[in-house]
């Protein structure tokens, strides 16, 4: 491309140089021709002017000679003879005797008046010779040469001057030019351009004023004509070119030196320049011939070079063609090239029959046959999309086809390109056989689907298990607590306590099993929120005080103060980790022992992070080195009889480890059998702003619930009864609905603000809790429907269940079995918010 540009530029430079040289030569030649021609013309017309001048001089000389003779001539006959002889020599037209008053007398005695105007006085009074234009009726305009003479008398005519006259036409002979084949014109003009002697040729006949003629010239400006007028007035000489009817003429002008006349020579330039123009044109032709010869040689050289290049290129093309042919036969891609205008098939790779089962010739005949391969009805034809592809762009499709010979389903990935090939638009289609890939992909997809189905089944199973176990557990624990409040007999109380403890253990076991299961299935996510990290420790310590209330264990704390307590952390998970570790410490430390809890804060990996370190040290039973290695394994418990002594599921530390991992932290343990254990937890947390923490605080204000009205939606009678008993014990007025529909109906039928809160079970017949909530929230004419707190109270206890409740428009979530303290907290929080 660059080379071509250089060649083009060089060609242009050469051409421009050639044109410039030609133009310069032409200009130089024209200027030289003009100079030479005008010099030549000036010389010729100067001679003509000289002839006129000579005529005038001779006339004056003759008349001066005649005057003395006329004065002394013996007779009129002698005078006549003398003048007639002079007329033959000088060729004048007439001879006149002139009187004082301008009257004339010819030799033949004809009289008349010769109008010399003011020159008569010069002639008669001033005794000066004069030349004047005059006219006598019915005669051509005449030029009068008159000289004063001594007073004389001829035929009784008193004269004081004599004159000869020339018809203007007689003067033409003096100005005649024999050169230029009669195409030269000569004129004598007055300063205002009026022609007094007209020797114009055919082209310049019947003109009376030379300036009027020049005004028709397109090549002369008004200023140039004015300059010429000035030159005539001042008697200057010169030459110029003008044109008449598009034909250029040379004009040479020279003062005649009498009467203000100027002699003009006018010749067509082509006549004057004929020989020089021929020389110039011949030279131009020769030079042009040489230049053309050189150009032809250059052209032949360039053609030769191009041929060699083309040969090399052909070779390359053949090689590429061979390569492409081999490729196109052996690859699983069909290539087509289509003309964009007509969709005519310019090329189709020969493997099309193998891959698609259609003969190549059939495709060449009509490319639309490809669209018949598509196995699914309604699939958009690719050919219809092609016009929308712009040059340089491409479109892609996946197509399921039927092999036309085998009838097998085959899959193709089709890529269509649009290319501009030397101004012609082409579509190139690459139909890549992806049947193998498609089959592998299909198998993988099936496997994934199976795995996902299994996972979904497991989740559903766990959810169902959780829900179905919690529901009866709720009844067991609930009614046990109710029974305990009935002041039973000691034996019964003991039994009830055992039932409750067993139930709670069972519940813990269930919760742990579900938690570990959910962690493994990735259901539990790490959700850091802005918190005061010191408050987390405080909460844990308050829980620990409950654990230690009936134990004789020394509990020490060491709580450092962090530089910035506000961090992003999952406080629930941290709390669970610490409660788990501290709970084990309490559980495995005998009375009289001690437990130490330390919280410290250290710089993190960057300015934004800090490392929170918790350390729990006890003087409990400790663990063997072998067990410490498996302490975080599921269901691991040291076979020391502790299992029976210290009740547990064997999942607590496994869950703790999973939580710490989830938060990106580490947990380590040091223990010696019989001496105690030390658990160290390190968690990286990111600092945050205080204001974000404050926004989350909703301190409870109302703690007295007497008279609060709650609509309870619960289909299970037992659970409903437990809930009503517990709520009514708090002084709350409870209205029960047996399902979602009834809940909506009761809310609708009661006046606005009848209820302070709705507690909504989720899994109910007829209308579930989510839909019932939506129905209430969307009541158009009940302003309280949007603001009344709705709390989910359900055996669905997982975090996603909590989120689902909130998404359905509820304000809180209580999981069964119901813990009274939790109920109170939730009610208070929502009534105050």
């Amino acid at each position, binding site marked *: 491309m660059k080379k071509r540009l250089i060649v083009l530029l060089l060609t242009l430079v050469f051409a421009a140089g050639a044109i410039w040289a030609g133009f310069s030569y032409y200009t130089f030649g024209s200027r030289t021709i003009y100079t030479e021609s005008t010099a030549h013309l000036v010389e010729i017309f100067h001679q003509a002017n000289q002839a006129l001048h000579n005529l005038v001089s001779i006339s004056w000389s003759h008349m001066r000679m005649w005057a003395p003779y006329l004065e002394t001539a013996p007779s009129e006959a002698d005078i006549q003879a003398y003048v007639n002889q002079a007329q033959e020599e000088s060729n004048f037209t007439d001879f006149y005797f002139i009187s004082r008053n301008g009257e004339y007398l010819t030799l033949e005695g004809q009289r*008349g008046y010769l109008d010399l105007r003011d020159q008569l006085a010069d002639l008669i009074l001033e005794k000066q010779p004069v030349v004047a234009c005059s006219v006598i009726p019915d005669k051509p305009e005449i030029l009068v040469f008159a000289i004063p003479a001594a007073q004389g008398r001829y035929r009784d005519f008193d004269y004081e001057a004599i004159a000869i006259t020339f018809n203007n036409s007689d003067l033409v002979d003096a100005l005649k030019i024999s050169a230029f084949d009669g195409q030269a014109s000569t004129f004598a003009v007055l300063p205002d351009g009026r022609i007094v002697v007209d020797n114009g040729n055919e082209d310049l006949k019947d003109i009376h004023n030379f300036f009027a003629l020049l005004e028709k010239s397109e090549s002369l400006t008004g200023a140039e004509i004015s300059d010429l007028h000035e030159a005539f007035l001042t008697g200057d000489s010169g030459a110029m070119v003008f044109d008449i009817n598009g034909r250029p003429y040379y004009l040479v002008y020279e003062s005649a030196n009498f009467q203000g006349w100027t002699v003009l020579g006018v010749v067509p330039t082509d006549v004057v320049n004929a020989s020089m123009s021929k020389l110039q044109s011949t030279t131009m032709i020769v030079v042009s011939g040489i230049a053309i010869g050189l150009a032809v040689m250059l052209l032949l050289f360039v053609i030769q070079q191009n041929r060699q290049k083309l040969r090399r290129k052909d070779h390359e093309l053949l090689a590429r063609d061979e390569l492409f042919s081999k490729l196109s036969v052996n690859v699983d891609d069909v290539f087509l090239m289509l003309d964009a205008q007509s969709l005519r098939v310019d090329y189709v790779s020969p493997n099309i029959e193998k891959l698609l089962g259609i003969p190549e010739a059939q495709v060449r005949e009509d490319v639309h046959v490809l669209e018949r391969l598509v196995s699914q009805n309604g699939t958009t034809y690719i050919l219809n999309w092609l016009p929308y592809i712009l040059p340089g762009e491409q479109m892609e499709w996946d197509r399921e086809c039927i092999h036309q010979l085998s009838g097998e389903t085959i899959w193709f990935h089709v890529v269509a390109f649009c290319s501009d090939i030397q101004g012609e638009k082409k579509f190139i289609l690459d139909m890549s056989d992806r049947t193998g890939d498609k089959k592998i992909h299909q198998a993988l997809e099936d496997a994934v689907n199976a795995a996902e189905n299994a996972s979904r089944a497991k989740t559903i199973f766990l959810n169902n298990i959780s829900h179905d176990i919690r529901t009866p557990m709720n009844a067991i624990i609930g009614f046990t607590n109710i029974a305990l409040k009935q002041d039973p007999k000691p034996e019964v109380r003991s039994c009830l306590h055992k039932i409750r403890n067993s139930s709670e253990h069972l519940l813990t076991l269930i919760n742990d099993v579900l938690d570990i299961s959910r962690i493994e299935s990735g259901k539990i996510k790490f959700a850091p929120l802005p918190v005061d990290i010191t408050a987390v420790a405080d909460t844990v310590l308050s829980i620990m005080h409950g654990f230690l209330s009936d134990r004789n264990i020394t509990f020490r704390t060491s709580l450092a103060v962090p530089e910035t307590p506000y961090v992003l952390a999952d406080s629930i998970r941290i709390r669970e980790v610490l409660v788990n570790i501290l709970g084990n410490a309490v559980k495995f430390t005998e009375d009289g022992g001690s437990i130490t809890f330390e919280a410290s804060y250290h710089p993190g990996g960057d300015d934004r992070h800090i490392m929170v370190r918790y350390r729990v040290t006890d003087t409990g039973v400790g663990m063997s080195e072998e067990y410490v290695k498996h302490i975080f394994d599921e269901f691991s418990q040291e076979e020391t009889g502790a299992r029976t002594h210290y009740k547990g599921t064997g999942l607590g530390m496994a869950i703790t480890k999973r939580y710490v991992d989830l938060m990106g932290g580490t947990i380590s343990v040091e223990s010696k059998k019989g001496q105690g254990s030390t658990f160290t937890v390190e968690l990286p947390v990111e600092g945050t702003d205080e204001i974000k923490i404050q926004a989350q605080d909703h301190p409870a204000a109302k703690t007295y619930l007497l008279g609060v009205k709650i609509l309870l939606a619960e289909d299970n009678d037992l659970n409903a009864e437990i809930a009503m008993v517990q709520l009514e014990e708090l002084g709350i007025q409870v209205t029960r609905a047996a399902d979602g529909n009834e809940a909506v109906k009761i809310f609708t039928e009661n006046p606005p603000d009848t209820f302070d809160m709705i507690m909504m079970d989720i899994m109910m017949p007829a209308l579930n809790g989510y839909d019932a909530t939506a129905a209430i929230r969307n009541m158009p004419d009940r302003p309280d429907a949007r603001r009344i707190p709705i709390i989910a109270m359900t055996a669905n206890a997982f975090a996603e269940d909590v989120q689902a409740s909130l998404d359905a428009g509820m304000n809180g979530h209580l999981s069964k079995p119901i813990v009274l303290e939790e109920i109170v907290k939730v009610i208070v929080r929502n009534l105050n918010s």
Partner: protein
Amino acid sequence: MKKLLCLLFAVSMSATLLGGCAGRRNTTEQPDNGGKEGKIAISMYMWDRSMFKELTPWLEQKFPEIEFTFVQSYNTMEYYKDLLARGEPMPDIITCRRFSLNDASPLAQHLMDLSQTEVAGTFYSSYLEVNRENSGAIRWLPMCAEVDSIMANKDLFDQYNIPLPTNYAEFLAAINAFEALGIKGFQTDWKYDYTCLETMQGCAIPELMSLEGTKWRMEYESETANNQVGLDDQVWPKVFEKYAQFLTDVHFQPDDEELAFHPVTQPYLDGQTAMIRATAAMAESFTEEEGITSVILPYFGETSQDNWVLTYPMCQLAVSRRVEKDEAKKNAVMEVLMAIFSEEGQKAVAAGASVLSYNKEVSISPSPALQYAQDCIDSNHLYMRLASTEVFAISQDVAHKMMRGEYDARGAYEDFNAQLINYVNPESEEVLFTQENAYSNDFGVHGSAAASSLMNTLRAANGEQIAIGYASVVSSPIFAGDYTMQQIQWVMTYKNDAYRGEYTGAEIRRIMDWLVNVKEDGSNPIRHRNQMPVTSGLEYTVIETERGKFTLGDITVNGKPLEDDTVYTVLLVGADTYLEHPTFCNCPMPEDLKAKREDQYIDNYTNYDCITDALAITKQLLEPTEYVTILQDK
């Protein structure tokens, strides 16, 4: 663009007319260069109505692509000076017979230098040099020469066997011979300034053409405002001596100085006068039309070799310098000039009369009327009269005083000389009235506002119900401002007659038919749109059937239908000769209508009197009305 120009032109025309009817303005406007239908418009002012005889129709026929506006103006440079003084632009082509470089010098800056034109090149140099200014410019081109000398009734000479004179003595002998027979030997219309000027110069041409005479004349024609040239004291005393002798020799009688044209020509035609002063054209006319063989004799000298004929250019022609600004118009005007000064053009100007050409390549054969002046022509004894405005006026004044015996030759010379040095135009100063409204003389679809104003004024002043002008009767726009007597006289075209009569409506329709419709033999009373009749108290419609040919339509009287049987008093103003003469329009007024026309309003009543008297009553040229509506035939 041309359509837009035409539209603007039409709008401005309409606005001018409507404005002219009701408005007031200080100046009037000439039409611009854009003619109708994109034609080049050329305005040409004619010194005399005779130019309309053959020249204007010939020009319109020869140049159909040019829109000519021909206006009859006045034969004096003062007229054009007045136009310029009123703020009017110089018309494109102007003509004037009374000419001298002195008179024309104030116009020089408004006129084009023609010295470098092709048309000037067609002149014999010696004739053109007369008009060359000191600056070298030539602004005036002389039209062919008219011969104005002594006309003799050859039939009368033959009848009484009295030889035609060849010298002054024979001239006197012939006079005496005729008077012995009771026939006046020589008489002329001494009333007119041109007669006084020509006879005064004609009787002493050898003196005036002597070395001293020509030298003085060149000095006089080159005079400037600061260098007034008086009469030469060698030549001119002889001129007055010869003139005094001439008056005596032709038996001038007391009160002859009041003789006008008709009182002189009629006795000549009746064979009661043998010789009068006249032009060659008139000699031919009398010969052909009156059957009186008339020939031109020269002004006689002592011998036949001293005889001269008096000549003058039929008119001088100049071109406005404004024309130079428009190349296309300039070219068109030059073509028109070339045509006018061609042989064919000069014949059209001469309208068949004998003239002498100043141009090369133009050959006009002299008529038989000039056969007795041929020697003078051949010997170049052609005297061109000295014709400046002041010489005309002073010649009349001094000659009349000589005729009345107030001056002898010496006294005449001295008075003439004194007046020439201190010439004051007697009619140029006194303001007679102040015109309030200006009216254009542009001719539109509703006629000319200026012509209508004039005709309304004449009708009002004369108390007639209807006034009909045969053609456009104004020679210039009507200006707002002061009017002197001279300016008043210039308002109305020269040489009009005024009549009154009582005509029925049907007869008025016939009058209008006479003035408008093309006659069966093709004679057309309207040779140019400006010659459309001008009416007052009467409105009419015409349809232009083809260029320059019209058909009369509806006629109303003050907006009401013309009643055929109702008798109306009518004022008729116009030139009978022009309309009726075969060589002009050839449209004679029907005899019965002519018979009902009362005698000329007052004997020798001129258009000067007519307009002067009218203005004495109205004190204003009245508002114009839309007297005509010109429709185009579809």
